[in-house]
């Protein structure tokens, strides 16, 4: 007889985090005859947390450290795969800035005090022997969108922005150039071949145990979808606008800079560990107070 | 006046203080049913307080008041106490609505406004009335309200002589038609002598009853030139001790008061 019907809820956070899933959102490919998948996008972290905590979400695309935090807070989830490898850039008017050391004595606009972009920045600066609090001035803003507005308005000279705001900034304000690349810098600083695993796909633990086949199937499809986005940015752009609140033209430009690549967790334990470790060293709370144990990672 | 009139309500050794200030210091009096009892006394001796105790809006500290169980009181306060946002008619209707069937209210108010000559002002708001007119509205409200007991605090003040005269006539007619027990405060000895069946004089604080004066002559036959009344007037006036000349107003220009 036919197996019981399965309803899958896939929830993505608006913005580049969900970028790798746009094709699936559009085409809703069939994973298995008995499975129906519902895709939804939420705009705020609160909403996402609510969905995950309440167990509504079977798959969720969220920042990697948020996944760790949720796990430590006792929410039964597994980190299934990393979807993108960093979207942070330093933009500015002054082409003279070619390395982090050039930031000495400058004023730099940053978002999210104490969150990953801030921590990475500090890490890079310290690696170059600069004291983030003494050798330069960091001006903090609440949300990237605000900072982007200021950058476009030319009210700030140096700013660290995530995609798609980087593209928005350079498109709308020709003076602005992309000066530094967090991702490259990470590789240089850590000597690893991969950038830092910024966002990931998590899966409900119960689903992962009960139905590993389905999870595997989903990951395979997601990987393909991710590649598609990388291959056809022009086709992906309108979808990004449709689902993820990224304007099409910005999306077109930012796809190559979003470092989309879906790798299952079990293949890249070290990279993830290393990333979380770094965050942990700066502030344990960024990963929930303690590094996650092995159960956090979805097993092969 | 029949001396042994039926008693409507009575106060027994009633005392009342405001904080440290002892006002009523053991007042005992019987108020005769369907008669008019006048209360005179020095300013600030506790007349208003006394009425408010009878009305039940204040509680005595000591003693007790008997015979008021579920009887309605009309209270004509010392100030008009009208609701600024209601017209004259509405102000009177405000107290009547719960007591009379809707259809009776309109005509009743109308008749009382006519009696008090306020009919032309039935739709004016209190702030657009003169002092005397406000007093009249308060009067009409008290009279129109169906009650067993009628308490009045200086009811006829700030009215012109003619109006005052008419009003008193009206009042007496009304009262004779449907008698109620009236307890009222005044400062006008002559007025009391004309209206009252019985006059109580209060002392200075701490206040007790100084004297009680039943009226010797039936109301209808009272004349100013009646010497017994003149004597009574002098006696009463004499009870008001003037601070300056303790001889009392009974002095040279006394006749003017």
């Amino acid at each position: 007889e036919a197996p019981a019907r399965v309803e899958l809820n896939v929830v993505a956070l608006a913005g580049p985090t969900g970028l790798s899933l746009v094709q699936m959102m559009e085409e809703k490919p069939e994973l298995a005859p008995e499975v129906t998948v519902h895709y939804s996008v939420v705009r705020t972290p609160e909403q996402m947390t609510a969905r995950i905590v309440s167990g509504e979400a079977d798959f969720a695309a969220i920042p990697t450290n948020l996944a760790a935090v949720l796990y430590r807070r006792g929410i039964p989830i597994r980190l299934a795969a990393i979807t993108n490898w960093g979207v942070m850039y330093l933009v500015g008017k002054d082409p003279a800035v070619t390395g982090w050391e050039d930031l000495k004595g400058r004023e730099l606009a940053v978002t999210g005090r104490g969150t990953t972009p801030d921590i990475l920045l500090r890490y890079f600066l310290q690696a170059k022997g600069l004291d983030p609090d003494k050798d330069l001035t960091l001006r903090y803003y609440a949300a990237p969108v605000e900072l982007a507005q200021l950058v476009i308005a030319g009210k700030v000279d140096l700013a660290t922005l995530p995609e798609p705001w980087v593209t928005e900034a350079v498109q709308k304000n020709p003076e602005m150039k992309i000066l530094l690349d967090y991702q490259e810098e990470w590789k240089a600083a850590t000597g690893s071949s991969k950038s830092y695993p910024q966002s990931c796909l998590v899966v409900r633990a119960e689903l992962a145990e009960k139905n590993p086949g389905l999870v595997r199937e989903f990951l395979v499809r997601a990987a393909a979808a991710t590649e598609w986005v990388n291959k056809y940015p022009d086709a992906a752009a309108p979808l990004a606008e449709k689902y993820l609140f990224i304007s099409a033209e910005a999306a077109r430009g930012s796809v190559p800079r979003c470092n989309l690549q879906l790798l299952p967790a079990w293949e890249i334990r070290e990279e993830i560990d290393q990333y979380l470790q770094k965050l942990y060293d700066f502030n344990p709370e960024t990963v929930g107070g303690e590094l996650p144990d092995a159960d956090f990672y979805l097993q092969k | 006046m029949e001396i042994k009139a039926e008693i409507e309500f009575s106060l027994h050794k009633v005392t009342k203080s405001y904080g440290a200030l002892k006002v009523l210091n053991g007042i005992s009096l019987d108020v005769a049913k369907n008669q008019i009892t006048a209360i005179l006394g020095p300013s600030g001796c506790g007349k208003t307080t006394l009425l408010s105790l009878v009305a039940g809006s204040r509680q005595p500290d000591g003693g007790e008041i008997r015979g008021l169980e579920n009887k309605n009181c009309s209270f004509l306060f010392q100030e008009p106490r009208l609701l600024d946002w209601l017209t004259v008619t509405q102000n009177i209707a405000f107290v009547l609505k719960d007591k009379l069937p809707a259809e009776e209210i309109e005509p009743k108010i109308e008749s009382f406004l006519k009696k008090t000559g306020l009919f032309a002002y039935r739709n004016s708001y209190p702030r657009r009335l003169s002092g005397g007119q406000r007093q009249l509205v308060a009067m009409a409200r008290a009279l129109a309200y169906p009650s067993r007991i009628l308490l009045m605090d200086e009811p006829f003040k700030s009215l012109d002589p003619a109006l005052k005269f008419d009003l008193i006539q009206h009042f007496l007619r009304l009262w004779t038609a449907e008698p109620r027990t009236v307890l009222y405060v005044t400062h006008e000895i002559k007025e009391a002598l004309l209206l009252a069946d019985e006059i109580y004089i209060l002392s200075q604080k701490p206040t007790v009853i100084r004297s009680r004066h039943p009226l010797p002559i039936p109301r209808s036959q009272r004349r100013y030139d009646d010497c017994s009344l003149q004597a009574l007037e002098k006696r009463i006036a004499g009870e008001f001790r003037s601070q300056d000349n303790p001889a009392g107003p009974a002095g040279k220009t006394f006749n003017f008061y």
Partner: protein
Amino acid sequence: MRISIYKNNFLLLASSLLGVILLWSAVAAVTGKEIILPGPAATFGALLTLIVSADFWCHLGATLLRGAAGFTLSYLAGLAAGVICGLNPYFNTAFRPLLVTIRSTPSMSLILLALIWFRADFVAVFVTFLVVFPLVTQNVADGIKNIDPNLVEMARVYRVKPFRIYKELYVPAILPYLAAAAANGLGLAWKVTVAAEVMAVPARGIGAEMDKARIFLQIPEVFAWTVVVVLLGLFFDRALEAIVEKRILAWK
């Protein structure tokens, strides 16, 4: 004469609205960048393109509904609570901490809960309630506390039924307090509703639209919506004022 006053008022009103707009364009001119503060021209341009779209009215309607619902609920509740607090000092002392708690609890903490308890649609109503309710309660309570006790004594002596005392004495007596509370509450209601919509992002609603427009960096549109909200505020404020004036001018 009456008419001339209205004419006058109308002129004044128009001119002061003009004043607001001039101020705005001046500031815009100074700021310079449309992406931060678009001037009236750009804004009204965006507004036009908005209005012609059918969605506009859905969003407007949704917000209108939430704001109105939130306000009405909290106003009625506040009226009741205020009267009780005003009449009974003990209840007042007991209730006040709760009131202050509601009033000064940061929205963030509430949003966290609201998002979980209610559908996104309802969050705005909830948040509005929490802002407007204490406002009304406070004003009503302070109004009641200051009613002329002589009038109350009069009504009591004449044995007027409590409900009628409440309806015909208390309410008119505290009308100015009610007016102030209504004006403040109504004004804040729109602001708060929109803010809540920004955080809860319901399917329809000005707040959600503003947020979307902002994310797409369509700042003129953001301001177009702002204008809509302000107009909402102005409209209801006028309506309110008209009602109150009518009630009070009669006997003043």
